[in-house]
């Protein structure tokens, strides 16, 4: 009975006209962002953040959430038609999607990725409804030592699953932690590492940092390379509905992609790109004729596209139930909630049921809207690809500038954003990914707070982290993750994320 009343609340909030409109707006912008290469979901969510200050928190998250999973739909379009992934999670869709387009089957490729995304998104939403409440109840029993273990595991996971070099990802995470220490110490009220600069006496805000590292730096990177002519694959965009045979071929891939993607999505760092890559690898392995992959096999489109959407849904669980964001987008969403004075965590379900159930309810509506946006209107999005970047970037700059200013109504935040923009540019040039930095920055205060509280409880003995079974297990897994890349290297193998860079 309780479940039914939750479902009722979910739809009641989600179907309020204003929330429905905001959900649509989010999905619309999400598709747009997904279609445009060079502007990812993290950047666009931080751009839209200031717009959400005036609306209730549940409406803000409904809109930003729609934007997030909307990019997962939109990202496949350019992969299929241009061989250019709209965002990272759609990289593998290029392999078979573009080949299908070249074989004159662009329609079914776009169709199956939209339907696959829809099925995965809807199933993912149902799974959130079933899994989140029990998880929140477990997390409610967590004390400070358990949270230390959890945050530590989360950060290790993110660096373990990051693409490219793991030491570099670890460096980024530690730098994020160090930045989070700057400002006033919450326990003693003592000012730390501010070098006497009053602007940062209260610490850095998340918004200017995220906007700088993801918005400004992206534009700077794009500015420094000349614009390539985008050649849209000329094909008739009819026959978008997959045939019976297509469905028969891809139904297994969609099911497997959904389950795999959802559970990887719950793991910090596991959704998006990792989910789609693993789904592709799995489909190829399970296939009777793996040679057809890379030559336009529909399963190579259906699986990964379902996996990245299910992953986008699953990623909401740890944020909403434990206050642990699994990726940068969720970290920014969490920041948005915190700006509204809502702290995500196990108490969210009890204290703010409207937010939790409203967001979940809106996902059903959002996935349905996205199906409509992506199938009948596909021609419109293809035309969007002709917008030159030179026309786009001044607007991205402007949105960042306004956004950073409005967070605290002061121009200092604008300067901080620009500085982090330059930092982001330099980091990319030196092959560092800023994502772990932002995650660690967000989790830093929670980590430090729980850490010090634990030691106050234990009277200063660090053994508390090992005598509490849950935190001990988390720390054990973390140490395995930290040590295993070295062990793997000795055995001549690679960690999962290492090969994803190219």
């Amino acid at each position: 009975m309780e479940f039914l009343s939750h479902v009722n609340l979910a739809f009641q909030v989600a179907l309020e006209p204003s929330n429905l409109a905001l959900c649509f707006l989010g999905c619309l912008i999400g598709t747009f962002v997904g279609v445009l290469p060079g502007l990812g979901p993290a950047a666009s969510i931080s751009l839209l953040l200031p717009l959400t200050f005036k609306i209730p928190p549940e409406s803000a998250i409904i809109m930003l959430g729609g934007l997030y999973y909307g990019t997962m739909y939109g990202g496949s379009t350019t992969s299929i038609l241009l061989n250019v992934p709209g965002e990272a999670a759609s990289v593998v869709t290029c392999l078979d999607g573009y080949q299908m387009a070249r074989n004159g089957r662009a329609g079914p490729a776009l169709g199956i990725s939209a339907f696959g995304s829809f099925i995965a998104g809807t199933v993912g939403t149902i799974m959130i409804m079933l899994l989140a409440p029990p998880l929140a109840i477990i997390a409610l029993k967590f004390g400070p030592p358990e949270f230390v273990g959890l945050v530590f595991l989360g950060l290790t996971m993110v660096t373990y699953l990051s693409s490219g070099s793991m030491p570099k990802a670890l460096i980024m995470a530690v730098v994020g932690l160090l930045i989070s220490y700057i400002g006033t110490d919450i326990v003693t009220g003592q000012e730390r590492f501010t070098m006497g600069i009053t602007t940062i006496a209260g610490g850095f805000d998340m918004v200017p940092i995220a906007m700088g590292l993801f918005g400004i730096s992206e534009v700077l990177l794009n500015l420094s390379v000349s614009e390539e002519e985008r050649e849209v694959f000329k094909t008739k965009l009819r026959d978008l509905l997959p045939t019976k045979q297509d469905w028969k071929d891809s139904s297994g891939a969609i099911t497997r992609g959904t389950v795999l993607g959802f559970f990887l999505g719950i793991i910090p760092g596991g959704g998006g790109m990792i989910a789609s890559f693993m789904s592709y690898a799995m489909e190829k392995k399970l296939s009777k004729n793996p040679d057809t992959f890379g030559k336009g096999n529909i399963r190579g489109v259906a699986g990964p596209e379902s996996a990245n959407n299910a992953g986008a849904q699953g990623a909401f669980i740890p944020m909403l139930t434990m206050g642990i964001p699994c990726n940068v987008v969720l970290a920014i969403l969490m920041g948005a909630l915190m700006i509204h004075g809502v702290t995500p965590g196990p108490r969210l379900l009890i204290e703010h049921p409207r937010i939790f159930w409203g967001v979940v309810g809106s996902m059903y509506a959002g996935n349905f809207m996205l199906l409509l946006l992506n199938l009948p209107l596909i021609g419109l999005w293809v035309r969007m690809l002709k917008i030159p970047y030179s026309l786009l970037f001044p607007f991205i700059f402007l949105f960042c500038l306004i956004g950073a200013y409005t967070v605290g109504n002061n121009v200092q935040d604008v300067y901080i954003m620009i500085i982090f923009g330059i930092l982001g540019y330099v980091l990319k040039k030196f092959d560092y990914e800023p994502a772990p930095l932002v995650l660690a920055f967000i989790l830093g205060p929670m980590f430090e707070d729980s850490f010090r509280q634990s030691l106050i409880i234990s009277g200063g003995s660090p053994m508390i982290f090992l005598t509490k079974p849950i935190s001990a297990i988390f720390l054990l897994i973390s140490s395995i993750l930290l040590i295993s890349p070295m062990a793997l290297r000795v055995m001549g193998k690679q960690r999962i994320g290492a090969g994803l860079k190219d």
Partner: protein
Amino acid sequence: MKNRDLVSSIVWTALGGLFVVAALQQGLMRKGVPGPGFLPFFSGIALILFSLFVLIPALGQRVEIVSKNFFPERGSFRKLAFAVMALFAYGVALEYVGYLISTFVFMFLMARLIEPKGWLPVTLMASVTAVVSYLLFVVFLEVQLPKGPFGF
């Protein structure tokens, strides 16, 4: 790339060292429990440690003579420097002349100087952007943006 790893790992090591020293001044322990400097101290140590994992392989490899150019294109440094300066200038201008004028000038400069186009479309684009965004943010969303001496 190795060249760059060398530079970056040295920078991180130095940063880690800075935090370690500063954290020691903050005090590691307070009344038997960790104080404000405790985690920063160990994070600084961790940063130095992880930097070694980048530094040592970079030292082991012979320095590549032909490395990827930091600025992929000729002239892109000028573009970037211009963009960054314009961004900072926007921040300064915002407080003195208000939102509308600074936005117009910023959009004008961005469109005109980075991707040269005709005067008319650029002026038109900049004015429409400034006015429409003003209406959207200030009038419709009631966002507080600085007003110049002229009241807009």
